[in-house]
């Protein structure tokens, strides 16, 4: 039975090519791997090998022919002794169109995945719950200890997390409590230990990876994004990376350009990751416990300056905060201020100053920036008709940019002024004390932005 030899596609983009040279003639016996012809693509001259054994029948395209379409029949190949004189005339082989699985409903979603369900207004803890004051540092430590007690597959890995008790003392006491099997000091080797931790998650464990600061995670960002965030999708849901990447993010104080960067917007862009950025100690505790239990890779962005600050935390057996639920920290009527992490400090200070001037600001603490609680923001903006976003990161492609665009798209008719994004300045972080202060966002800038949108 004669089979057709088709003009091959030899690159992802090739549609036609030149049949430069035949290296066989009619009647030649070929076996798998023999070079049959040379074919010129737009990039190179390629050798075309035989796949099947047989005898070359008719050569249907003369050498030197240009513009031969991919999948056109260029020759016939048959078994020895076979008569191929009745071979078909050259014609493009019928393109076999793959069966298309039509969607039951239109599958193309809107450009943003805005949830139109009303916001979740349940409080984080029941009224009357006993509270105790603790620092963000203590809250994070307690959350990890509780989850490590709860699930023996949870372990902590990173630089100085064990014997040194944590560069910022977040892991203090955990080595004594859980032993060196579960609190693992690594060499200074972010790319390597992050890859190992992602592999351990593929293997069914639940690693918590501590980056001494998120600046160093840039060495490991390939594993965070390409290995951890994308594997569930690439494997068609067969395996993923249930794990937490945590550590201080953003500017500390006077540590210069390479140690002072906010990565919120970087990670928030990546489907497959969830991104958490707590403000208070209660946020830190409830969200860390949720993060460790989640079955996806979580980026948990802490802030060094916030570590030592104290907040009330509920005294509960098992206190968790769900992702995608913002918190209205201050209710107001004149403007919505949306922020997260240390940005909340400026937002709340500004709200207090504005209250003294008779402007009532509603302050929303995002807490998770992927998924984002769009409903809470949009409901608030529809009430106040004005919005200012506050973050320490750079202005281009910021979280505020995204919120502004979403508000414009979903609540344009409610706006009485353009949304203003208050961000860090578009410069690397300087060292000099006065310059650093100006590079960061200030409370006065937030106050000025609010006055601008309220036309005061």
């Amino acid at each position: 039975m004669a089979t057709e030899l088709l003009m091959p596609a030899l690159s992802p983009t090739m549609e036609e090519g030149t049949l430069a040279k035949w290296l066989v003639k009619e009647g030649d016996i070929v076996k798998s791997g023999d070079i049959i012809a040379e074919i010129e693509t737009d990039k190179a001259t390629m050798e075309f090998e035989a796949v099947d054994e047989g005898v070359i029948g008719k050569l249907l395209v003369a050498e030197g022919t240009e513009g031969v379409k991919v999948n056109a029949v260029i020759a016939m190949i048959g078994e020895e002794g076979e008569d191929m004189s009745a071979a078909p005339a050259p014609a493009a082989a019928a393109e076999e169109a793959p069966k298309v699985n039509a969607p039951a409903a239109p599958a193309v979603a809107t450009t943003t995945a805005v949830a139109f369900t009303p916001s979740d207004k349940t409080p984080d803890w029941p009224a009357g719950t006993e509270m105790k004051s603790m620092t963000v540092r203590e809250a994070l430590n307690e959350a990890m200890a509780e989850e490590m007690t709860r699930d023996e597959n949870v372990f902590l890995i990173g630089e100085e997390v064990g014997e040194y008790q944590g560069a910022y003392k977040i892991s203090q006491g955990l080595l004594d409590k859980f032993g060196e099997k579960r609190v693992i000091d690594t060499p200074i080797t972010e790319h390597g230990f992050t890859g190992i931790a992602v592999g351990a998650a593929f293997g069914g464990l639940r690693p918590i990876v501590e980056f001494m600061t998120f600046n160093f995670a840039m060495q490991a960002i390939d594993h965070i994004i390409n290995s951890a965030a994308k594997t569930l999708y690439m494997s068609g849901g067969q395996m993923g990376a249930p794990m937490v990447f945590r550590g201080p993010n953003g500017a500390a104080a006077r540590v210069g350009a390479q140690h002072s960067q906010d990565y919120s917007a970087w990670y928030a862009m990546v489907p497959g990751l969830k991104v958490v950025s707590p403000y208070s100690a209660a946020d830190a505790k409830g969200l860390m416990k949720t993060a460790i239990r989640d079955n996806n890779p979580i980026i948990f962005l802490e802030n060094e300056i916030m570590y030592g600050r104290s907040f009330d935390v509920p005294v509960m057996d098992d206190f968790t905060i769900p992702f995608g639920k913002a918190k209205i920290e201050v209710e107001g009527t004149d403007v919505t201020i949306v922020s997260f992490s240390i940005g909340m400090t400026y937002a709340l200070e500004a709200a207090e100053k504005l209250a003294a001037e008779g402007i009532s600001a509603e302050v929303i603490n995002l807490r998770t920036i992927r998924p984002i609680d769009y409903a809470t923001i949009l409901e608030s903006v529809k009430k106040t008709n004005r919005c200012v976003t506050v973050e320490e990161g750079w202005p281009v492609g910021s979280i505020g940019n995204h919120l502004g665009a979403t508000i414009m798209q979903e609540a344009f008719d409610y706006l009485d002024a353009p949304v203003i994004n208050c961000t860090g300045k578009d410069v690397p972080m300087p060292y000099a004390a006065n310059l650093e202060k100006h590079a960061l966002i200030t409370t006065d800038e937030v106050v000025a932005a609010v006055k601008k949108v309220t036309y005061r």
Partner: protein
Amino acid sequence: MAAKKTSKKPNVSAEELLGYYREMLLIRRFEEKAGQLYGMGLIGGFCHLYIGQEAVVVGLEAATKEGDKRITSYRDHGHMLACGMDPKGVMAELTGREGGYSGGKGGSMHMFSAEKHFYGGHGIVAAQVPLGAGLAFSDKYKGNDNVTFAYFGDGAANQGQIYETFNMAALWDLPVIFVIENNQYAMGTSQARSTSTPDLYTRGEAFGIKGEIVDGMNVLAVKEASEKAVAHCRAGKGPYVLEVKTYRYRGHSMSDPAKYRTREEVQKMREERDPIEQVRSMLLTGKHATEDDLKAIDKDIKATVNESAEFAKESPEPHLDELWTDIYAETLPQETA
């Protein structure tokens, strides 16, 4: 080739030899078919064929047991077939169809099988190496005696993360075999032009990792080396480096014209060192099989491969709703046992 021959005359049964013959032939015929489908435009993007390297995975897999894990780069079709994944599911992934191992969402470079403990299929050169050490970490943590095979090429051997991984794997005695598939060309750059020292198996020495070089065109030599490495890892003695000297007959990917080496070099390797021909001749000279027996096997394999190609053409494209699935997991997909 500097690789050692097997130390003694192989003591191998006819059944075993026939098994290797079948497995290697399946990979070769499968890859040839994949090349053909690529030429027809049924397979898109990048497609890296394993032709010539068949003895590497078949020899290494011969020493494995249930529970052992494997992870590799983007030249991954051979590894999947060798660990028992279904050719239909692999081919349908190459054509981007619903019946593929990743439902068409991974492609040639990104396939996985939780069932067969195959962890991909990774497109970033060397990224699979720390991931593989992490898989070994998970087994050590759980206290079982499983071993992980982390495959990478001579090109990847110059990536920094490999040495970060060597250090920690040795420090923590991780049960991982680092398999360097040295096919002598990193895309178009020969080993002589890319590595300051040619003996990649010595690269673990600075970390105290034992290394060995083996003739990767000889499936029995590979199997023997694999058994030794596996025994070392299972005994809790830490990682092992195996440099397997092999040769890829085809270009780096389908669109590689391979002008960096001569046709004679490739032809010589095919004629004198071909891993499948070596086993074929052992079968015939040892009177373990007749020409007719082998012809029947060839026919059988060809049918399997054709069936996989038919399946890969017939299987529908994924439902458009699949665009939005598998981004986040509600439950933990992989086994936690």
